[in-house]
């Protein structure tokens, strides 16, 4: 899966989970937690989605909460080898 598809997948999941419209997440730099789109109780479900997307388990002890800041930090932390194709 290329980077663009990953970003779209993450964006779609966050918007769906938040019950928001796409304009609630206008950029991949926008804060996800601080802006209230997701809460800490959404993180488990989100990690399971990310594991499904990347087809590999996430080592929770190896990540810091900051990786959930925004879509850019998520891609960098969980999909470091994704092929870069003009991100949104």
């Amino acid at each position, binding site marked *: 899966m290329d980077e663009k598809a990953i970003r779209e997948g993450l964006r779609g999941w966050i918007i769906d989970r938040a019950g928001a419209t796409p304009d609630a997440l206008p950029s991949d730099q926008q804060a996800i937690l601080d802006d209230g789109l997701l809460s800490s109780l959404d*993180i*488990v*479900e989100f990690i*399971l*989605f990310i*594991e*499904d997307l990347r087809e590999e*388990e996430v*080592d*929770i002890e190896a990540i810091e909460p900051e990786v959930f800041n925004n879509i850019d930090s998520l891609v960098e932390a969980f999909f470091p080898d994704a092929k870069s194709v003009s991100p949104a």
Partner: protein
Amino acid sequence: MSAATDLAVRLSDASVRKSWDVYTAFDWPEQLDPEAEWYMLPELISIYGTETWEGLSETEQKRLSFYEIVNFFSFVLYGERPLISGLMNRMYRKRTQGPITDYLHHFIDEENKHMIMFGEFCKRYAGKIYPEKKIVLPREYAKGEEEIAFFCKVLIVEELGDYYNLKMMSDKTINPLVAKINKVHHIDEARHLGFGREFLRELADETVDSWTAEETESFRTWLTQYLSSSWGDFYNPAVYKDAGIKDGYGTRKMAMAHSACATFRAEASQKLVDYFIDTRLLSEAPAL
């Protein structure tokens, strides 16, 4: 003496009388065959009542029951870790000094033994403990909310766990070691639950009236989400994959949305939800 303090005296006596040694309480078979017998009681298995469950052979169902019990023991073990940590931080405070701290020593001792017991089963027979996926993020609390939230978390992990313990501890169709672990756990948990219900009720009585309507609503929203999130622990994609079901994440989503599973969750949560409504920590039964 408050009701919780009075109860703590009696529970400490009971803990001394019923004290047990985790290192000698069980005969651990050399190995277990996941496909040879039932481990989790079938009707407690997370996808029971779904078309996916019906599509499995009995051997496949038994294999799933093995990984489901490993998952159950894993997340209860992980649930007890912050519980022990939180209880330790609450010992020898003004509110808890005396009989309550005396009882917390037993509470912590027993929870530590449960972690050893669950960890031994998972490592010995599955070669692993399913890792938890939780990350705790800092948040702001209303006055007294952090204490109430902590004891709500304690009650949720223990009440849901005890629902399963009670169903399995005397059942003759499941593996006898699994039945015994559930029984040993239940005997200690019955005391923990009695204390937790009483202590949390006193905290709620003292605190809820001091909250604004907005703070009360915010807490109830959090509690509903936390209870729902706790149920998510039972639907582990890694379990389904280990049992041979290809789409683990899809199976989780299917089961969590399935009416048969939702009915089961509501039934298993009934006692807990009734308590939360009675103590005004919830205003109505949430959709789980």
